[in-house]
């Protein structure tokens, strides 16, 4: 198990003005499952490759267990990596793929056999050890890639979007298996993905990246409930959070009045803001009779534009007077509404988040950054 510390890590390619990874600081504790999440080109894979030693570090410090690793070659970092394309050696059998790294490190034949057999047992690969990768299914190849990392028993596991080549059903089952594997091995894992569901369901913590920088780090539900800015708020959650701009009228007892559509909402808003962006998650809207008893609500009238009945829930696309963009609400599966209906929705204002209208930075105190 290893503690991985990134201190102002930077990556710049050639003479490019913008850094691919810019001043990233992150402290990943021993045994933690850290997910680096972000859209394509945000620098998450480059960060992972710098940790792996596959990409030279332009600036900052990378240390593992207190030892600076900036100039240590990949092979001496005691790290194993699982690639998106699996990167199995096509000319070797599954056994040789698993044993390749161990042979290089001079393990005795018996020890190699033992480790490969153990890993094959854990991953259900025992019947396929004599096969070559082309004779395996996508899921089996993925397991071999995992096995190659497991047999090494490294300090840190790195995963670069390992599930994105699998079909939806297999992805869900592999996700669960990876979580189980983490619990079983207890090794530090750093996992790169652009899939928020993977991040939310697997990570002990999530690090959301934007344009080469860290946008927010925190436990999945904390980040979901207290996004640091509008980017994080929009990136997490499906359907996306509703972001509505509103004027602020300061009131008494520190509570201000916000106007969202026709509704006047009382909320705590730090002084000095005349306009804010109000963030409301789709699941924080309730149809009449659906709101929990303790919900602190405001009422909002809307016209239904479209209804998506998904079985477990119903997603409504709404036109709210005075709000430019369409609003999305996720309501109960028994909702009986049709396009064109007028509905009166309750908004749970406790779950509502406020952001600065100019910078998009969160105004509520629960947010954590960096």
């Amino acid at each position: 198990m290893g503690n991985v510390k990134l201190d102002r890590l930077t990556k710049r390619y050639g003479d490019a003005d913008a850094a691919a990874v810019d001043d990233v600081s992150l402290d990943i504790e021993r045994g933690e499952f850290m997910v680096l999440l972000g859209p394509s080109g945000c620098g998450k894979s480059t960060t992972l490759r710098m940790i792996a030693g596959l990409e030279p570090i332009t600036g900052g410090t990378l240390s593992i267990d207190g030892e600076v690793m900036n100039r240590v070659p990949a092979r001496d970092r005691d790290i194993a990596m699982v690639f998106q394309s699996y990167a199995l050696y096509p000319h070797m059998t599954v056994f040789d793929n698993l044993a390749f790294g161990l042979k290089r490190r001079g393990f005795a034949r018996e020890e190699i056999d033992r480790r490969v057999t153990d890993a094959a047992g854990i991953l259900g690969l025992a019947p396929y050890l004599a096969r070559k990768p082309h004779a395996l299914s996508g899921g089996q190849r993925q397991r071999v890639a995992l096995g190659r990392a497991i047999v090494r028993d490294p300090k840190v596991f790195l995963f670069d979007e390992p599930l994105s080549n699998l079909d939806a059903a297999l992805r869900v089952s592999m996700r669960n298996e990876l979580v189980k594997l983490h619990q079983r091995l207890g090794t530090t894992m750093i996992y790169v993905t652009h899939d928020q569901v993977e991040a939310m369901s697997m990570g002990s913590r999530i690090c959301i990246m934007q344009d080469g920088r860290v946008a927010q780090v925190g436990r999945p539900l904390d980040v979901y409930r207290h996004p640091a800015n509008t980017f994080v708020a929009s990136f997490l959650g499906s359907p996306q959070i509703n972001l509505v701009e509103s004027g602020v009228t300061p009131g008494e007892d520190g509570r201000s009045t916000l106007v969202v559509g026709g509704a006047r909402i009382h909320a705590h808003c730090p002084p000095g803001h005349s306009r804010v962006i109000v963030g409301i998650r789709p699941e924080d809207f309730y149809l009449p009779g659906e709101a929990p008893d303790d919900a602190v609500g405001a009422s909002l009238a809307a016209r239904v534009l479209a209804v998506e009945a998904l079985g477990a829930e119903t997603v409504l696309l709404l036109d709210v007077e005075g709000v430019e963009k369409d609003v999305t609400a996720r309501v109960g599966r028994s909702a009986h509404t049709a396009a064109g209906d007028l509905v009166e929705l309750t908004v749970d204002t406790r779950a509502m988040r406020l952001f600065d209208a100019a910078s998009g930075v969160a105004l509520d105190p629960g947010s954590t950054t960096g």
Partner: protein
Amino acid sequence: MTTSIRFDLKHGFLVVALALYTAFAAGPFLWVASMSLRTTTEISAEPYALPDTLHFSKFAIAWTDGNYGTYFGNSVIVVLSAVAVLTVIGAMAAHCFARYRFPFRRFLYFLVFSTIIFPPQITIIALFQILVEYGLFNTRTGLVLAYVAFQLPITVYILESFFARIPSDLYDAARMDGYSEWEIFWRISLPVAMPALSTTVILNTILLWNEFLYAVVLITDDDKRTLPLGIQKYMGDQLIDIGMLATGLMIAIVPVVIVYVFFSEKLIQGMTAGAIK
């Protein structure tokens, strides 16, 4: 019904066209094959006739009296050495061009590849001088070196395009597994590129086995000659022994035909191989 007739017509036309092309391509070969089993007297009497008696003894005569045994041995030594050196050096150069970024990479690649546009006649005089200078003229080593230089660009070209298609994750995985760049070349690049390597080996073997121009200029001793020069043996100033010439040609051609028959599938596979998944 109409579709079936149209298909039959199309099919028939294709068969006729292919048959004509096969006759055009294979005709001369079969003619030489038939002449190789006939005597010059028989050929002079009736050039296109099939052999009455199969004179297999002509092969033994060419092999021993015509010195074709020595030529054959020389061809094997020269071609195998050249192909071995070409494959190793070509693969190393191609691996570097495909996998590493270094100053003047594109320029160097262009420089290597640009030599492909020059016909061999342009370089032959300079090459002759250089080999004389270094004491390599009229040696099999000199011929091997000339062959390596001559075939290197196309070898690098074929292998580079293959190496470039190998996913870089494979190399990264080997680096993470603890292997050095040198080990990665031998243990990953070469085995993975086997289809392309087979292609270059077969292609170079066939081309060099049949090569005449460099051999005729750079080799003068009879006991150092390669098979394509053997035909000179039966070509006098006044007389050409056409029967023995055909026998000698068959000795030279048959190994190439065998190589092609057995490895043509591999050759095509290597030429058309896609990226490794």
